[in-house]
């Protein structure tokens, strides 16, 4: 069965510090991978998605970047955090496009980031 891991679970960082959040998926190959941010009382905002190694697309301009160094590894980074980067970050995966089950997205447990 497929599982998705995120770490760390919680993180408190000062403004201006770097960030690295990691997501890994097990039990599937060539998944589509996604980073979302969830602000309190709001829905999920798609930040980045990737359909393959080294292929990253951004949905919104921001202070963050993403990388996919391996097929099942997705990393969210920042060189200098802003207060507005605080939130709950969720990684998700789905089967590749064209797969009958490709519509479903499966979410990880999330990382709670607080920037002080």
């Amino acid at each position: 069965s497929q599982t998705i891991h995120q770490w760390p679970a919680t993180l408190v960082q000062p403004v201006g510090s770097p960030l690295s959040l990691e997501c890994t998926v097990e039990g599937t190959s060539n998944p589509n991978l996604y980073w979302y941010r969830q602000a309190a009382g709001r829905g999920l905002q798609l930040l980045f998605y990737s359909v393959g190694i080294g292929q990253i697309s951004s949905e919104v301009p921001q202070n963050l970047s993403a990388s996919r160094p391996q097929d099942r590894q997705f990393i969210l980074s920042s060189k200098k955090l802003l207060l507005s980067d605080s939130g709950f970050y969720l990684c998700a995966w789905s089967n590749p496009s064209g797969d009958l089950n490709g519509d479903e997205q499966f979410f990880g447990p999330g990382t709670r980031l607080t920037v002080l």
Partner: protein
Amino acid sequence: QQQVKQSPQSLIVQKGGISIINCAYENTAFDYFPWYQQFPGKGPALLIAIRPDVSEKKEGRFTISFNKSAKQFSLHIMDSQPGDSATYFCAASIENSGGYQKVTFGTGTKLQVIP
């Protein structure tokens, strides 16, 4: 046109009652409508989903009703239980030209089921 509007923002239901959450969308190209359940501090989990060629889908106590002409869909939770207390998100998705499923989420409904 990519928005999905969800209501109510919060809902309190007596144990055993019916919880109803409504969503409306604009883009008729959406082809998949999932509902997610999220407990505090956890990631959302897929609860039930429907495609626009079906008017209703039932899984246990959870039912999606879909009205294509009105561009509305709703989640009904029958015999609501305290364990159902969570935030529920509706969503609508379409395959993007980039080869992935672009999902637009509603803003969520916080459900509280009281004994």
